[in-house]
């Protein structure tokens, strides 16, 4: 259920009329707005770190890369990066689909496809980070 808000509506020069309007919505706007920014900062820090590593270890060798990802802090940092990436991608893709796909059935199907893909990618990422 939405909250009732009072608005002032100006009608020409004749005066002001107060109206009551119900603002509906799931109220996830601010939470998602904040999440999009926090995940962006986490990914930016990780990207700059990884870019720095590439610059310092050029040309890139398997051994250097393998060693970097063998440290537990790096593994958790990578997991945090992917978690941020998938949350960020969900909010972004959801917003794009809400804007351009007007058929509710198609939109629901695409939203579901995005969620399922991201969950699978997450499991895949865990497997890559902690695999052999």
């Amino acid at each position, binding site marked *: 259920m939405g909250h009732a808000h009072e608005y002032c509506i100006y009608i020409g020069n004749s005066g002001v009329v107060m109206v009551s309007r119900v603002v509906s919505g799931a109220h996830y706007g601010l939470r998602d707005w904040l999440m999009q920014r926090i995940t962006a900062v986490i990914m930016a820090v990780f990207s700059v770190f990884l870019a720095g590593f590439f610059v310092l270890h050029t040309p890139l060798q398997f051994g250097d*890369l393998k060693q970097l990802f063998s440290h537990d802090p790096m593994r958790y940092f990578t997991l945090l990066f992917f978690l941020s990436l998938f949350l960020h991608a969900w909010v972004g*893709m959801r917003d*794009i689909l809400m804007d351009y796909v007007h058929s509710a059935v198609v939109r629901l199907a695409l939203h579901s496809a995005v969620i399922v893909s991201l969950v699978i990618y997450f499991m895949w990422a865990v497997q*890559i980070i902690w*695999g052999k």
Partner: protein
Amino acid sequence: MKKQRPVHLNLFQIKLPISGIVSLLHRLSGALLFLILPFILWTLQASLNTEESCNNLINTVKYNPILKLVIMFFLWAFLHHFMAGMRFLLLDVHWGCELHQARLSAKWVMLMSIASTLAIAGWLW
């Protein structure tokens, strides 16, 4: 009296300001990056799996100019998304909100995303 204004949002008929173009490309690049996620994960997997799979990956890219171009395109998508995102974060903390500043930063995002893509391309190959 009703004003005559375009009520459609036909992208081929409206002229977007530079910050609108940056915003649109931010969306487009974001959607592109989402679509190539499986390739990014696959690349990470191949580079960390065995020395052989890592070298195979490097050699595949090394001798394939078309693949290099494709990778450079996605690198641009990443850099544009990154820089435009940084710009949005700065706007969120009310940095550069004046119209002329916002236009200038939008131009810088367009310029630097392309320049850095070319610089990295030149550095790698």
